[in-house]
């Protein structure tokens, strides 16, 4: 940036944060302002606006945030609509997703992950596929046809050679793969298997029609490869953030954040999930805070409501992670842990709270906003918490 030292001096002298200072520089450059006087005026004016726009002491920021998120919330779609979107993966959106986030549900309605790959995997579709098969759960129905032979009391699996080759790209011998599969069946179901070519057969110990069907049922649930929680993986080519290049990125249906991060080929520094609890468990409270902000902002932006100021969402995330773990906003979380009986009673399930408070002989200090609204006293916020004396002169000496 080509600004003179004098200009730099006046701009650096202001209280502006780095980002705004840089913006001042670039505007000065753009407009070709080189004289210090004008630059100083610009900087002063920007600083004035900046200071003006800051939150005043005793401003009810929480209430303002609630309104600022609540109003656009009324414009959101009420129905979860599952759609074949860009990634062909169903994701809960709109109001249901926002509610899910602030309620801090243990698992989201549609858990999903964005899996970034190490460079050597991210640029090669075949290698990216290797990772896909390590993540996506492979069950028997994907591998071949299962039929029951009632006369001989046998379950027979006719494996598809092509599928096997595709899903075990690193194993050359077909025999080894089939062997692997039958061993998995043996250890999971506790039966003996016989295999020849690509056919695997097994049956119950005692000839019983019920046991035979039971075995087929159990067979369907066995995960031969990949992670059980992840039912589908989609590969997409995406721009690398801030660069012109593209890379392969995996999107999953279902999430197992901790497990996926440990898989070879997965970039454990960029991969994320929409399950904030998993982020909390694996990466800690700060990362969870970050994800809450990103997810709430994305949910709003997706509905065209991205003019909600990020500071409101940051406040929400700060409060939700204030105790070192994720707490929901609501009766079981933040609002339910309030000190004041009246404030809790005013929120939800009024009678229960009043009854419990009476049983335990609780008292209310009347410090908060809600309590004072209930009893009709001025709240301790804004002009309610300062006393003004008109016409008093400052002490002279």
């Amino acid at each position, binding site marked *: 940036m080509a600004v003179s030292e004098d200009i730099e001096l006046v701009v650096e002298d202001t209280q502006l944060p*780095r980002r705004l200072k840089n913006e001042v520089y670039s505007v000065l450059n753009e407009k070709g302002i080189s004289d210090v006087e004008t630059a100083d005026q610009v900087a002063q004016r920007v600083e004035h606006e900046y200071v003006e726009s800051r939150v005043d002491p005793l401003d009810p920021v929480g209430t303002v945030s609630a309104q600022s998120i609540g109003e656009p919330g009324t414009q959101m779609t009420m129905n979860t609509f599952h759609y074949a979107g860009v990634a062909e993966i169903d994701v809960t959106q709109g109001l249901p997703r926002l509610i899910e986030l602030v309620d801090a549900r243990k698992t989201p309605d549609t858990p999903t992950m964005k899996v970034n790959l190490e460079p050597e995997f991210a640029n090669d579709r075949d290698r990216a596929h290797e990772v896909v098969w390590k993540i996506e759960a492979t069950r028997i129905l994907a591998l071949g046809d299962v039929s029951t032979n009632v006369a001989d009391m046998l379950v027979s699996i006719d494996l598809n050679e092509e599928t096997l080759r595709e899903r075990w790209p690193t194993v050359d011998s077909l025999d080894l793969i089939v062997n692997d599969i039958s061993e998995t069946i043996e250890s999971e179901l506790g039966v003996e298997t016989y295999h020849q070519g690509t056919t695997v057969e097994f049956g119950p110990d005692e000839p019983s029609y019920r046991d035979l069907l039971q075995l087929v049922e159990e067979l369907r649930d066995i995960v031969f490869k990949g992670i059980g929680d992840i039912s589908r993986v989609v590969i997409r080519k995406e721009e690398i953030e801030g660069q012109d290049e593209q890379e392969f990125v995996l999107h999953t249906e279902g999430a197992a954040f901790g497990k996926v*991060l440990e898989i070879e080929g997965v970039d*454990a520094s960029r991969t994320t999930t929409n399950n904030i609890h998993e982020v909390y*468990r*694996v*990466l800690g409270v700060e*990362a969870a805070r*970050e994800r809450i902000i990103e997810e709430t902002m994305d949910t709003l932006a997706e509905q065209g409501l991205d003019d909600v100021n990020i500071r409101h969402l940051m406040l929400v995330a700060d409060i939700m992670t204030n105790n*070192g773990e994720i707490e929901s906003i609501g009766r079981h979380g933040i609002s339910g842990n309030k000190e004041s009986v009246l404030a809790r009673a005013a929120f939800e399930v009024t009678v229960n709270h009043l009854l419990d408070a009476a049983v335990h002989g609780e008292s209310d200090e009347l410090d908060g906003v809600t309590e004072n609204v209930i009893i009709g006293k001025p709240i301790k916020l804004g002009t309610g918490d300062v006393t003004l004396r008109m016409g008093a002169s400052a002490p002279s000496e």
Partner: protein
Amino acid sequence: MVDATEHELVPEHHLVEEERLEEILDEYNIDRTDLPKIKRLDPALRDVDAEAGDVIRIERDSRTTDTAIVYRLVIE
């Protein structure tokens, strides 16, 4: 277990020295229990040797300014 500190979502966590802590608490005029909390076993603290009662300094990339510095009290 994966190294959480390697992930881009995880900002840097450092232990605050006791003398420095007094200054910070004085500056904001608060007690250390007024600070937000962080669990002792938080994955992001694996490289920090923290005990309950210590204070952690966290340097976040901020969306509204360059870096935001926040403090969390280690609990449990």
